[in-house]
């Protein structure tokens, strides 16, 4: 019986590697398929989904950082990660994010009772202050720009991104996979087009195992833990948005620590999603929804899920380190421009396949806005208004 469950967990780990490495494939897609299937061992299937979700967060870092093909959970990792890649430090970027994922995963599992207590006591308070927090963050996005002209362009990008978000996320038209289409445009296609235009050359990547500052790892891990709490408390807030809000609240976070934070925030989102399911029977992600449909919400099952998550943390961290080295060896041997063109073509094909006509228009619009941000040297994170403004409208009761 125990051996069978371990096999289910490792099966989930392998599937998670696949879903994480493949652009356009979301763990929620696999979870949604799982709901429709009949399993001989529902507990085993639940452990498979849990471990798959955790390993997916690790593996996802590789295409985001090394190929510039981000997904919804950690698209902000693509920006500092890509910069480090072009400085020959791509492997370090992946290690930082994976370290964050591991550190935050351990902290999250250890502090689940604290998380549950915070949620019970603080949910109403956090929900009340979030509109003010969002307005504050939007304001700092503009005022952080040093020159007057850049402030104007920041406002233009925020307004354009915000309107796009309001239309595709809350409007009447049916946009299939709106998040994927727009995030791919803002943070994927725009980055790759910039690389192609600049005729970027991938420098030789440093393979020296740089020691990661343990203070950065712990602080980033703790911030990832807090980001997970924010994501759980606030509907319409994803792991990358929480990381972004924390960056604004705590002031400038260095790129390395930010990568640790981003890596951690997606993991804590998954772990707390499972804890929240068992505590309040509410689902915040597709994996939790799939598990709810398979097994009873007992304490024993929660413990089993957490054990699966712990095993998957170790597997994901080790596998990411190995696969990222193999990836780097492959891409260093290939013409970087060809890689960029191939990735851009793949992203366009995925948008056309997964989305509909409106999604393609949204993708093109988001890419254009991302290119304006690049051209005007405005922070690309200003495009986050795409998610923040609809969230603000939701909390203000306007949507």
């Amino acid at each position, binding site marked *: 019986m125990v051996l069978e469950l371990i096999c289910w967990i490792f099966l989930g780990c392998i599937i998670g590697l696949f879903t994480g490495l493949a652009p356009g494939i979301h763990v929620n897609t696999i979870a*949604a398929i799982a*709901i*429709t299937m009949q399993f001989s061992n529902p507990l085993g299937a639940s452990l498979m989904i849990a471990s798959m979700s955790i390993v997916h967060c690790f593996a996802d870092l590789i295409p985001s950082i090394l190929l510039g093909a981000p997904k919804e959970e950690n698209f902000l990792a693509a920006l500092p990660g890509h910069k480090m890649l072009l400085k020959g430090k791509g492997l370090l970027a992946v290690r930082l994010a994976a370290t964050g994922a591991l550190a935050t995963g351990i902290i999250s599992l250890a502090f689940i009772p604290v998380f549950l207590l915070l949620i019970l006591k603080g949910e109403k308070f956090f929900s009340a202050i979030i509109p003010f927090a969002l307005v504050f963050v939007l304001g700092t996005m503009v005022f952080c720009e040093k020159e007057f002209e850049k402030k104007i362009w920041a406002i233009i990008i925020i307004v*354009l991104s915000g*309107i*796009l978000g309001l*239309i*595709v996320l809350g*409007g*009447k*038209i*049916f*946009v*299939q996979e709106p998040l994927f289409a727009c995030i791919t445009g803002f943070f994927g296609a725009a980055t790759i087009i*910039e690389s192609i*235009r*600049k005729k970027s050359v991938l420098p030789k990547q440093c393979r020296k195992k740089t020691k990661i500052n343990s203070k950065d790892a712990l602080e980033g891990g703790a911030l990832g833990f807090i980001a997970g709490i924010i994501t759980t408390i606030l509907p319409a807030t994803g792991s990358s948005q929480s990381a972004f809000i924390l960056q604004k609240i705590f002031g400038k976070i260095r790129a390395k620590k930010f990568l640790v934070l981003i890596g951690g925030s997606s993991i804590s989102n998954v772990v707390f999603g499972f804890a929240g399911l068992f505590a309040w029977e509410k*689902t915040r992600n597709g994996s939790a*929804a799939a598990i*709810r*449909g398979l097994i009873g919400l007992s304490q024993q099952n929660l413990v089993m899920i957490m054990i699966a998550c712990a095993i998957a943390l170790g597997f994901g961290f080790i596998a990411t380190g190995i696969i990222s080295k193999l990836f780097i060896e492959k891409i260093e041997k290939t013409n970087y421009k060809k890689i960029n063109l191939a990735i851009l073509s793949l992203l366009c094909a995925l948008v056309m396949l997964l989305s509909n006509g*409106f999604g393609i*228009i*949204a993708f*093109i*619009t988001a890419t*254009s*806005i991302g*290119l*304006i941000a*690049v*051209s*005007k*040297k405005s922070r690309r994170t200003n495009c986050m208004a795409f998610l923040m403004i609809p969230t603000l409208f*939701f909390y203000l*009761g*306007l*949507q």
Partner: protein
Amino acid sequence: MPLKPSWEKTALAVSIAGIACLFFAQNYFQAEQLTIGEIEKEKNGTLVETKGRINQLGENEKTLFFELFDGNKIFAIKFNPTTEERKIARENKFVKITGKKELNGKKPEIIIEKISLWEP
């Protein structure tokens, strides 16, 4: 490396044109009128319009939710309902709702955008 001015203008024009296209599409996009049984076969995110009787009404500060019944039943939820909408949605009233079909776990539900009274 900044884009050439012609590229910048093109990017700005494309982004505004894209937003305008999507904005005007909203006004011309009609919801599909379906029965509750037919809604279950639709894809997630499809805008639908349906009618039925309100059962098992519930509400709190931010939401209004109920089961809509026309022989089949479906869960419907309205976020941030107005006072007018709260008055319309009463137990056993017949209403017409427009909204997006989504899946909550395995069960379909409608995220309501508009609700109005309906005389059967």
